[in-house]
């Protein structure tokens, strides 16, 4: 046994802080590696966070409702087995994040309060009161106006406890209850916060990553004919979407192009431990998330389809797991059946590549010296020029195209 602490994990480059919603385990309880220990609210919804070692939960250092920066110790852990175990990705990411100069986060600490409160002249409070996502959600649900509350957080930000206190002390409210706004509360998604998170990550990407872009038209006729024939014999539950073939073809091809699968760590390349494909999932009403399908290269198409179906449902419900957000080694984004011919992606830091598939369509195509009608998809690659070159990137796209000519082998 060795003493350790569980820290607020980093669930992506755009996450600065998280709000503890609840402890799923209690002090003294035994926790197996991979068990969910707590639920944390982030811009991407309520996320179940996992532990990375067999351990026993000790003293809790953070209470439900508190918002703390990434890397903050949340609980004491007694780890079973030696302390020499390697850190899992999420934990390592949390530590890396800690080491980097962290931007100011929403921290309800005394220092932050004294420093920032008197100098804050930002007009944001007028249009949109500062509040933690959890506070905003509870206030929404209870019909409490955030602007009417006195916030105890930094810059007067309203915290969950402030909303709870307001409700406890509230005398019957004279005004009629506001119209219900169940959508955001039920889904556990804060659209404004998600927008901010995307903006931060994409701005950082465009600022720091020297992207290069490649585009390649792929004849998809064999693949779509094969898939249609397969699906025709299957009940709907067993049918597979074309997007699953794209994910598999890209994941398998990445074996030969390790420089596209991994992370940038302060300018050095850190290869991914496995091919964990972040699948870009659009959220109706705005926003997107790209949680991982772990070891996508190892899964058969039916398993991959089941994972994707599950991931889409949970992403839209706002209930993803921490490892799914922290682990992607590369991103695949498909426009689906209604969209544009091609997309030129922006890399999600610290990843080094994003692969795009446009909307397949019928096009004139030259085959055996004759012009014929074929189903064509435009595959694209945006990659980090610090870690790979266009020559290799082009070979990668060509190979993905080759793979898709033999769908049976996927």
């Amino acid at each position: 046994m060795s003493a350790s602490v569980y820290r607020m994990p980093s669930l992506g480059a755009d996450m600065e802080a998280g709000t503890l919603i609840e402890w799923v385990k209690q002090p003294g309880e035994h926790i197996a590696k991979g068990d969910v220990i707590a639920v944390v609210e982030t811009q991407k919804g309520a996320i179940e966070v996992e532990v990375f070692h067999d351990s026993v939960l000790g003293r809790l250092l953070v209470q439900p409702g508190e918002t703390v920066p990434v890397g903050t110790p949340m609980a004491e852990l007694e780890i079973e087995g030696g302390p020499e175990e390697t850190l899992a990705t999420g934990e390592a990411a949390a530590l890396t994040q800690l080491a980097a100069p962290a931007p100011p986060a929403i921290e309800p600490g005394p220092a932050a309060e004294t420093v920032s409160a008197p100098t804050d002249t930002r007009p944001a409070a007028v249009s949109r009161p500062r509040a933690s996502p959890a506070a905003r959600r509870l206030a929404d649900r209870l019909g409490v106006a955030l602007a009417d509350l006195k916030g105890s957080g930094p810059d007067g930000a309203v915290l969950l406890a402030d909303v709870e206190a307001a409700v406890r002390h509230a005398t019957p409210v004279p005004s009629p209850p506001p119209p219900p706004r169940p959508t955001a509360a039920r889904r556990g998604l804060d659209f404004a916060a998600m927008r901010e998170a995307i903006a931060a990550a994409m701005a950082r990407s465009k600022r720091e990553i020297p992207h290069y872009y490649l585009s390649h038209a792929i004849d998809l006729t064999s693949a779509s004919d094969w898939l249609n024939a397969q699906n025709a014999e299957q009940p709907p539950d067993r049918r597979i979407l074309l997007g699953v073939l794209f994910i598999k073809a890209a994941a398998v091809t990445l074996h030969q192009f390790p420089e596209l699968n991994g992370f940038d760590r302060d300018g050095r390349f850190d290869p991914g431990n496995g091919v964990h494909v972040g699948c870009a999932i659009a959220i109706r009403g705005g926003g997107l998330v790209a949680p991982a399908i772990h070891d996508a290269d190892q899964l058969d198409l039916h398993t991959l389809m089941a994972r994707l179906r599950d991931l889409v449902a949970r992403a839209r419900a706002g209930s993803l797991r921490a490892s799914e957000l922290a682990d992607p080694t590369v991103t695949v984004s498909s426009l689906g059946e209604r969209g544009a011919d091609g997309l030129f992606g922006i890399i999600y830091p610290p990843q080094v590549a994003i692969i795009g598939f446009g909307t397949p369509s019928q096009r004139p195509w030259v085959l055996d010296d004759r012009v014929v009608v074929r189903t064509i998809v435009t595959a694209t690659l945006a990659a980090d020029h610090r870690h790979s070159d266009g020559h290799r990137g082009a070979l990668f796209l060509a190979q993905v195209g080759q793979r898709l000519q033999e769908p049976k082998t996927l």
Partner: protein
Amino acid sequence: MNREEIKAAALEELTNVAPDLADETIPHDADLRESFDLDSMDLLNWVAALHRRLGVDIPELDYPRLRSLDEAADYLLVKLGEGH
């Protein structure tokens, strides 16, 4: 089942597979893909749910006939009739 019952069932299954649409008012003649941003995953999940609930086979080639709730009800009514 009559047409209205089928339509009600279809709507219920739709909001089961896309719970984020539960609060929306969906006009019965609205194009679900265009107006409500149903993607191919939503559509497939809906088809699977209709298959389980009504026992009708819905091949991929017929997906365009599920454009709106009205059209889906017409299509499913015919399909259910074929089974008897």
